[in-house]
């Protein structure tokens, strides 16, 4: 490399002149890139909190959605909060067990054969499939036959979560020591028993925290819901298994392009609620991981 210029004094201090200047410029640029990344983050969080906090109240979180023309203090976003909770919970119930089982196949049964490597690779690829495609997919195979429903939205979010859960669980299973497995086999336990009572509990904390992060990601998604739950409701549809539904991200999407200040204010309030949900899930995930780390030590 041209870098190693040879003739150097044995002085171990930082080299003087242009080389030192260049090194410092590079270090400053690295810090600058960090600053460039957090500036928009700070602006977004500040705006959402500043504009959302004044709107949020218990009444806001539970009341029906008023017409857009009404001011910020009328009504609330109750139906969307209920919809988000129902749909996300359903998606979790569908995707997390399947994702964990899938990872069990990849790591415990496949053991690095071509099929498990191929599935692992495709799971990685699937995490890169745009969320809108999952919405179109469920629209094509489900909604056209059975109509819009919270369940259809949950399928779309579940399809989005599945590869994330598979990948995070797989990483955790890799950390479970083989001696645990061998010890259980030596006691005469069958493979399913070893997996269910020894391997999965040993990795439980990491698996739970990975699943929580997947839920946090899914809860904020709008695009998969556009084609599956329809939206546009003003009163709650408590039955997620039939009929159109509404969720916070969809309400924000509708209100973002609304010219009415009341609707925009409800959009900011919903945004703060949504970010709060995501943060709670993320903190819960960190908490679970931290406890697990202490337990490991």
């Amino acid at each position, binding site marked *: *490399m041209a*870098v190693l210029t040879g003739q150097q004094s044995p002085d171990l201090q930082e080299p003087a002149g242009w*080389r030192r200047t260049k090194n410092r410029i590079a*270090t400053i*640029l*690295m*810090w*600058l*890139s960090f600053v460039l*990344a*957090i500036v*928009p*983050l700070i602006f*977004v969080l500040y*705006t*959402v909190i500043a504009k959302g906090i004044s709107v949020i109240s218990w009444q806001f979180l539970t009341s029906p959605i008023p017409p857009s023309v009404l001011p910020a203090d009328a009504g609330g976003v109750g139906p969307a909060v209920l919809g988000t909770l129902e749909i996300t919970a359903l998606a979790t119930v569908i995707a997390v067990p399947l*994702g964990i089982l899938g990872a*069990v196949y*990849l790591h*415990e*049964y496949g053991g690095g054969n071509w099929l498990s490597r191929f*599935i692992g*690779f*495709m799971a990685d*690829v*699937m995490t*890169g*499939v*745009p*969320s*809108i*495609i*999952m919405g*179109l*997919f469920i*629209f*094509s*195979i489900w909604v*056209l036959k059975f109509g819009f429903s919270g369940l259809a939205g949950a399928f779309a979010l579940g*399809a989005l979560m599945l590869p994330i859960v598979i990948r995070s669980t797989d990483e955790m299973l890799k950390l479970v020591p*083989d001696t645990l497995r*061998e010890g259980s*086999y030596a006691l005469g*336990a*069958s*493979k*399913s*028993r070893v997996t269910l009572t020894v391997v999965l509990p040993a990795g439980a904390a990491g698996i739970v925290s990975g699943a929580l992060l997947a839920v946090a990601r899914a809860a*904020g*998604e*709008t*695009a998969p819901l*556009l*084609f599956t739950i329809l939206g546009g409701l003003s009163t709650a549809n408590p039955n997620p298994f039939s009929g159109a539904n509404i969720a916070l991200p969809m309400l924000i*999407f509708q209100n*973002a392009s609304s010219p009415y200040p009341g609707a*925009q204010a409800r*959009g900011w309030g919903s945004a703060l609620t949504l*970010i709060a949900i*995501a943060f709670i899930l993320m903190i819960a995930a960190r908490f679970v991981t931290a406890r697990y780390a202490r337990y490991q030590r």
Partner: protein
Amino acid sequence: MSTATQADQAAPGSVPARGLTAGPGLGDRGFRWLALGSGLLVLVILVLIAISTSQQAASWFSTEGWGIFGTVWDPAANKFGATPFIYGTAVTGVIALVMAVPVSIGIALLLTEVVPFRIARPIVYVVDLLAVVPSVVWGLWGILVFAPWIQHIYADIGSAVTGIPVLENLFGPPTSGASFFTAGIILAFMITPIVTSLSREVIATVPAVDREGAYALGATRVEMIRGVVWPHSQGGVVGAVLLGLGRAMGETIAAALVIGSSPTITSHLFSTGYNMPSVIANQFGEATGVFRSALLGLGVLLFAFTIIVNVIARAIVERSARRARGA
């Protein structure tokens, strides 16, 4: 690995030997099939996505033929050409990469080469927070706060470059705050965390011995990065960048709100445009017949593009990771 496989073969045999009922053996096999089924679900979903959406898009493909790549999108006149959206997707993707990649690599290098672990961890948390902000919240902020603000900057740049060839055609005066460029910037914010974390993983595989060798020869940090870190992690970083491109191509709601929603092909980056996911999101509600079929067809094209980009990117990342392990 091999011990687990041997135990797998031994386990079914040992069950009757213990004089237990056939129950556990059956349950064991059932569990195995359940796990295999769940794993195969990934492949099944990917294949079903391709088949079901293509079926729904069939009438667009058959009525338009090669016309699907036409340049005019006018539902009122039954003209459904995809080129304006493919163009918009490419333009916003490139803008996002141009801005996000240097920043992401900068942060990745900061985390791996400059700061100690206890400072690196909070930085990672903060950068990951960019990914926790939902797409629609970026969109809400983008259209109500960011676009009105940046429109003035566009206007200033636009008047500054008037009369200068090329620049004038790229950065001409804006039509509104919503534009290709605004969408590109918002997408850049959104893909920064993934490009950063993947680049960091790649850079972290550079052997410590190589680093120490370069320092021992008297290299400064930046010289060490150029001489050791960069040649070693180049390939993997390219993969990370491609994955970021895949994300930027498919990111829907934020772009749908700030791109300006007009299907035009223009060199003016500050003018309103459209890309593939945002047109699907914005127009699907009112679409029927061939119109809806065309939107689903755009979805098929988008799916194909992102799958290609992701497969290439993952293959590159995996290959560079394997080489790093071998080295």
